[in-house]
């Protein structure tokens, strides 16, 4: 199979996943108990029956369910995710306006976690030292401590008690430090453990011994040989976790009071703003599918064995 053909198949499969996800979301959200009309009309409003009918017609809520479903899928195909009941803006524009902040956060957190994990695994793989024990302890803590709890502690101490990193004010990198750390730590532990295990394995492989017998320094063996092996699972995990980072942003954004996709998601879930929930769900699923395809392609760059296997 050529790469192009496989890519095509993957995209097709991804599209199927998204279609199924959309249908699932539609079904689930159809079964929700609250009255969309009141959600649409918002908090302090009094809705007369005439207004209600008008709104139902405007949002297509008066039509049979299959027609609604058809419309729903049709609109998604045109890149239209509907209109928020609450904000009365198009879901696409809401996601668009909130996306930047969350993506910046998630990407920074991924880079942060990946960098830290690379550092941790390169320095501690195959060795037993206090640094390794310390790293293991940090990993264990990062895996076992709820992200909001880490965030609260960081916020309380590093922003409020000792105002080192502001959480509001200028939109500089400094206000990003704590949220990125919080979100990044949530995946750092797993990432680091997997990468180090892989690196431990790579360092025990004969090729590492061969490299050493060529007079390579320990550092070169780690950076030039073992790290590439560790990066393969590292990338898989990062890709898998990128989606969960978008979800993790819900918590981080809430703790730090940041705007973003997570904030509107939580808001939409609590207010049952159905189009937004569906939009976010589809969007995140789409991100997941895309990152997976991207990582598959990236593998080929890193792992020549896969390259020629399908060539």
């Amino acid at each position, binding site marked *: 199979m050529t790469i192009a053909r496989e890519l095509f198949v993957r995209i097709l499969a991804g599209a199927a996943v998204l279609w199924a996800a959309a249908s699932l979301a539609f079904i689930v959200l159809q079964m929700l108990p609250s009255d969309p009309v009141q959600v649409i009309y918002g908090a302090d409003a009094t809705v007369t029956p005439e207004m209600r009918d008008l709104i139902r017609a405007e949002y297509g809520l008066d039509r049979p369910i299959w027609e609604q479903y058809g419309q729903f899928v049709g609109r998604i195909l045109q890149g239209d995710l509907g209109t928020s009941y609450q904000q009365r803006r198009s879901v696409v524009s809401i996601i668009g306006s909130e996306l930047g902040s969350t993506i910046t956060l998630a990407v920074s957190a991924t880079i942060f976690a990946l960098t830290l994990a690379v550092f941790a695994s390169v320095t501690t793989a*195959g060795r037993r030292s206090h640094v390794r024990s310390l790293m293991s302890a940090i990993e264990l803590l990062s895996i076992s401590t*709820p992200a*909001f*709890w880490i965030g609260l502690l960081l916020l309380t101490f590093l922003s409020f008690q000792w105002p080192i990193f502001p959480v509001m004010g200028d939109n500089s990198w400094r206000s990003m430090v704590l949220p990125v750390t919080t979100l990044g730590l949530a995946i750092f532990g797993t990432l680091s453990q997997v990468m180090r295990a892989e690196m431990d394995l790579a360092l025990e492989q004969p090729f590492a011994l061969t490299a050493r017998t060529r007079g390579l320094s320990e550092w070169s063996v780690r950076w030039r040989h073992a790290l590439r092996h560790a990066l393969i699972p590292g990338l898989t995990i990062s890709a898998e976790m990128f989606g969960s980072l978008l979800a993790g942003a*819900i918590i981080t954004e809430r703790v730090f009071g940041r705007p973003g996709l997570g904030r509107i998601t939580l808001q939409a*879930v609590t207010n049952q703003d159905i189009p937004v*929930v569906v939009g976010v769900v589809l969007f995140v699923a789409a991100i997941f599918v895309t990152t997976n395809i991207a990582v598959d392609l990236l593998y080929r760059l890193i792992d020549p064995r896969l390259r020629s296997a399908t060539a």
Partner: protein
Amino acid sequence: MTDLSSPLSPPENASLRKLRRGRLRPGIVLAALVLAFLLVCGLWPQLVAPYDPYGLDLLQSLKPPSWSHIFGTDQLGRDIFSRVVHGASYSLYVGVGATLIAVCVGIAIGLTSGVLGGWVDLAFMRVVDILLAFPSLLMSMAVVAFLGTGITNILLAIAIAAIPGYARIVRSQVLVIRNSGFVEAARVLGQPPLRTLLRHILPNTIGPLVVLSTLGIGSAILHSASLSYLGLGPKPPTPEWGLMLSEGQGYLRAAWWIGVFPGVFATLAIISTTVLGRYIKAYSEGRE
């Protein structure tokens, strides 16, 4: 084909592993003790808790930790220690319950898929792929949005979000076992497939999964705390850790003990299950 192990510098490797295991030991004992304590708290909270977790005592409002209230009191004068102790049962309930459901359903799906193969496998794994496309927290939130908030709904939400992962693991394990030398050996002996399934495939699939699920309990507790924190869990005055932390968030500077102790307990519970789960995993793999 011979002597494959020689270039792997076995002496270094083996001793390193031994050393690692040696270092883990006091940690494991500690983890087991913590879990045992939490188990007692979860099953018989009234044995441990000195006060009623819901009992108001407005005269004892906002007392810092002291001998009479070792974790202090909250604004309504409720004993934080007693609340934290009672909170263990919710975390255990969700952690064990959600994992149990997820593992059982995961086994059913993964086994059916792996054993039957063909279009059943294809259909099941497509569905699992779709479900895996959603981050588990988001999926749990969507489920909670549908079922409503509350501890049991959180349990279900976490279970549902965890099922696809387990199903995938079971399926791949089944495939590995099915292609293993000993299943082939059974086939060569003329063993009927159903007996092979029950005698070899099932036990060898479930074993590792049970081990893995101990780790799952920790992450289920973590998830339930997160959902509670987001306000999707049980309602106040339920002494659920995530909820207590969420309520205590505003007190972190004025009355730190209200939020800190539930947080510490949640972290302890998760760490302990993780440490113990890993140990059991290492142990079972070492003995295999």
